[in-house]
């Protein structure tokens, strides 16, 4: 009977432990637009719309990293100066008050983005420009811009490859900089960007398959350009109409099920295999696990008397203060001097075992074999060389 009780207790503890591990302690969001110039108005609008949503659901500005490579609100071509709209009805000015842009203009580079994720920044970079996430943080990474097969263009000048992104996330995981990560990307051939990820606890979703374009949703004739992309539009529609409060119980499964290819005009993808428990488990994560902010405020009960409660602590601090007043000298009671030395060793049974690293290869997007492609490339290069050599030899003998 006692044994059974013991067993039950251990089981309860195990359950508790698994519950504890499933919990996160803070939320961070990294929202990145990567394209410059007025005709890319919609990419900034995408990001700003998402910024509003995560802020509405409770992530404070200090935990949102917003990267805007251009300033549409102050663009001379903007017919509505100082504003950015993501809808032709112009009901909500996304650029209104309380926008905290962390990286702006030419600060938005591949290098800065990777430095941000891996925190390899100068010591004098302020904390507002750093991703301060830890092992208990859920991180939302949203990117939008112009991309192609396994790359995303930054600023018209450079591009980030799917490999670099995967390595950055891999380093974040190594340094325990996230608990779970939701990666969202809205660009052409977006799904190719997450094929190389290998670190666990990532759910990735993109707007379009390999060789597919992502389209804009609609244009505002007065603004003169498209104001939002389709996939982002429908994701936001879900978030704004269904996830109305930070207590919403809707989960990622509901969000991904809301994708409608006939509306989005491309095939959005989701990658589950990096998530422990795969799709089944991942679908159960609530949307606000990533878009909202966990903040379990602890109200102190002034009347509780258990150890560590406010009242007890106050009494102890009071004593400390009194003692401090009594002797102005340094506080030396913490580490008392000791006379004897105990050097007896005892074998220890507990040591830390790190779980073996699970290596996940990159996933294949297209059916055709890689070898075939390489062979084609090699023969093209070979043929060119052959023509060159033949040409020079023939030219020589013809002369």
């Amino acid at each position, binding site marked *: 009977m006692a044994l059974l009780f013991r067993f039950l207790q251990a089981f309860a503890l*195990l359950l508790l432990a698994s519950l504890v591990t499933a919990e996160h302690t803070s939320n961070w969001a990294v929202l990145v637009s990567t394209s410059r110039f007025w005709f890319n108005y919609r990419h900034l609008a995408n990001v700003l719309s998402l910024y509003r949503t995560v802020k509405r659901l409770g992530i404070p500005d200090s935990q949102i990293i917003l990267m805007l490579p251009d300033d549409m609100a102050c663009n001379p071509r903007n017919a509505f100066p100082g504003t950015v709209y993501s809808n032709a009805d112009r009901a909500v000015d996304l650029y209104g008050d309380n926008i905290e842009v962390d990286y702006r203009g030419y600060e938005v580079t591949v290098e800065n983005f990777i430095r941000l994720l891996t925190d390899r920044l100068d010591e004098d970079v302020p904390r507002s420009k750093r991703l301060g996430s830890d092992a208990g943080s859920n991180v939302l990474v949203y990117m939008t811009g112009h991309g192609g097969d396994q790359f995303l263009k930054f600023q018209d000048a450079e591009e980030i490859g799917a490999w670099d992104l995967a390595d950055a996330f891999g*380093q974040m995981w190594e340094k325990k900089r996230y608990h779970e990560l939701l990666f969202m990307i809205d660009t052409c051939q977006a799904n190719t960007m997450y094929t190389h990820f290998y670190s666990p606890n990532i759910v990735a979703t993109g707007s379009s398959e390999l060789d597919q374009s992502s389209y804009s949703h609609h244009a505002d004739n007065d603004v003169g350009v498209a104001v939002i992309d389709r996939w982002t539009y429908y994701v936001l529609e879900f978030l704004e109409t269904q996830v109305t409060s930070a207590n919403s119980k809707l989960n990622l499964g509901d969000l991904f099920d809301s994708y409608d290819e006939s509306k989005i005009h491309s095939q959005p993808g989701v990658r589950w295999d990096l998530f422990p428990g795969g799709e089944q488990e991942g679908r159960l994560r609530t949307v606000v696990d990533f878009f909202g902010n966990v903040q379990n*405020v602890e*109200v102190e009960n002034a009347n509780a008397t258990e150890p560590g409660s406010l009242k007890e602590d106050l009494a102890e*601090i*009071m*004593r400390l203060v009194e003692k401090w007043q009594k002797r102005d000298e340094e506080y030396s009671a913490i580490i*008392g001097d000791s006379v004897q030395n105990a050097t007896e060793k005892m074998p*220890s049974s507990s040591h*830390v075992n790190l779980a073996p690293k699970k290596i996940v290869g990159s996933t294949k997007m297209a059916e055709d074999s890689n070898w075939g492609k390489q062979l084609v490339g090699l023969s093209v290069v070979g043929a060119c060389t052959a023509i060159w050599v033949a040409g020079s030899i023939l030219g020589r003998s013809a002369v």
Partner: protein
Amino acid sequence: MTTEQGDQVSPQVSTSHANESTVKRPPPPETPAAVQTRFRVIAAFWVVIIFLGFPIWWKTTSIYRAHLPIEEMVDWADGKACRPVFPLEIHLATPSMQPIEAQYLLRTTQHTLDDLNEFAAHHLRLKLANDSATVSHNAENGMEGAINAEAQAPDTTLTVRLLAQEGLAAPRSELHAATTQLDVFYPPSQVPVPSSSNSPLSAFIAEELQRLYGEEKATIAHILSGHTGGLDSTSPQLAESISRRLRRSMKYAETYHLSFSLFTPGSEPSSWDIEAAVKEYLSPLLQAFEPISNFTVDTQVQLYANFAPTAPRPEYDEAESAWTLKKEDLSAFVNAAEWPLNPSIGNGPTINFILYVPDPSQSPLIVKENRASSWIVPQWGGVYLLNPTLSNAEQGGQSNPAHLSHDSLGPAFMTFSHQLLTLLGTPSTPASLPLRLQTSIRIRAATLLLSASSTMGSLARLTESLPSIPIPASVASSVSTTLSHLGATCSHLREGRFGAALASARVAETEAERSFFEKSMVGQVYFPDEHKVAVYLPLLGPVGVPLVVSLLKELKRIAAGRKARRAAAAA
């Protein structure tokens, strides 16, 4: 090839004009001097390529990777290099006992303690403290007891004073709240005699000690087991409270910035006696925390601070005759967007303490559920609602006092001190602050040891998995500092010197972080093979083909010449 053509074109042009209709004649034979020159030119090109071009290309495209002791780093991460142990030394003071009785009591109590203990890494060692026992101890400890150097001695965690008291049925204990002393009162009749097999007194002492260090033991077991399990005997309640505490406490930092802010929606109070309050209420605590972290304090007063436009407003509660905030709305209380709360000073995290004085029209302001006036925001800081006595203003309405005196700040700063204790992860038992601080020294040492070790493992794995990432020499030196300090931490722990262990662990953690977050280790240079071909082919194709072809031709010519010479020699 170009040099060859240069030699031949000009005579050919003149001849072809003259004999357009005639059969093509072969060019005149080359002079040996021309052949020699051509050979030298080609050789010169290749010498430059091999001895200058190739090394430069190699040098400029290779990545500097300092040598790291990968195996040792992985050993630390896997826990093979060190098994942290926590031998706590407890002194037994027996002023009213015979040495022989005291010895016997010590032995039986130690025996009971060892029987009770199920977590071998954390164990309690009893020592007799009074002078009468030193002799026997010196004999026991041999050399080390005799040397008795201060640096060698382990920290005493607790002194148990045994005091005989008449008229007691059973022993009772009393913990001194301000020192590290536990008084045990016992009836003189219960002094153990060597003939009896077990004594109620030693059992009592052992149980008392076990209870005192129960939470610490469970916490350390929880940390060492990687937050997954812990001790079997830990009650689910305790386990829950431990993991809750670990969740809400701040991540360790070398320096914390404490930011005290006075927010009020109106123009008053516009000043507060902050310096005196910090000095009186907070300095002792910060001083006590000195071995663990450094603190900087800054303060601000923000007038006309409004709630966020979307935040729920306080409601008037008739029954309480006070304005109330609902508990679930408290997370929206702090207007993170408009209140200047992230001063971004230095590189440590900021712990925010907000003193909010409500508008006279909304005073007093309390939390609806339990009339509390303060709350903790995990990993962020604390809030205190201060409702000062209102004074009647000239215009009829009421107003807040213009100045908050040192006394009126008292309760608020006591609460902030408590919140600081909580946010720094101080355990809640035993009920003596010095003991709790000692416990948190041990917990921090364990945490830092593990986190620095795991950073080493991460760096080692990173080095192996990303061959394209550069590793500067500073990383290697940081790594070696980390490893040596980790070793020092481990041996200090084994010998029970927890203050020294924490000091080394702090250095190890700082250096480990520095090595991992080295600024120049940014792996954004991954090029797929296609890209490499695309970069090199246009550059090397036009240059490389003539060079290779001319080299081949020259080799062919030399081979042919040699064959001809050999044939001539044979003939």
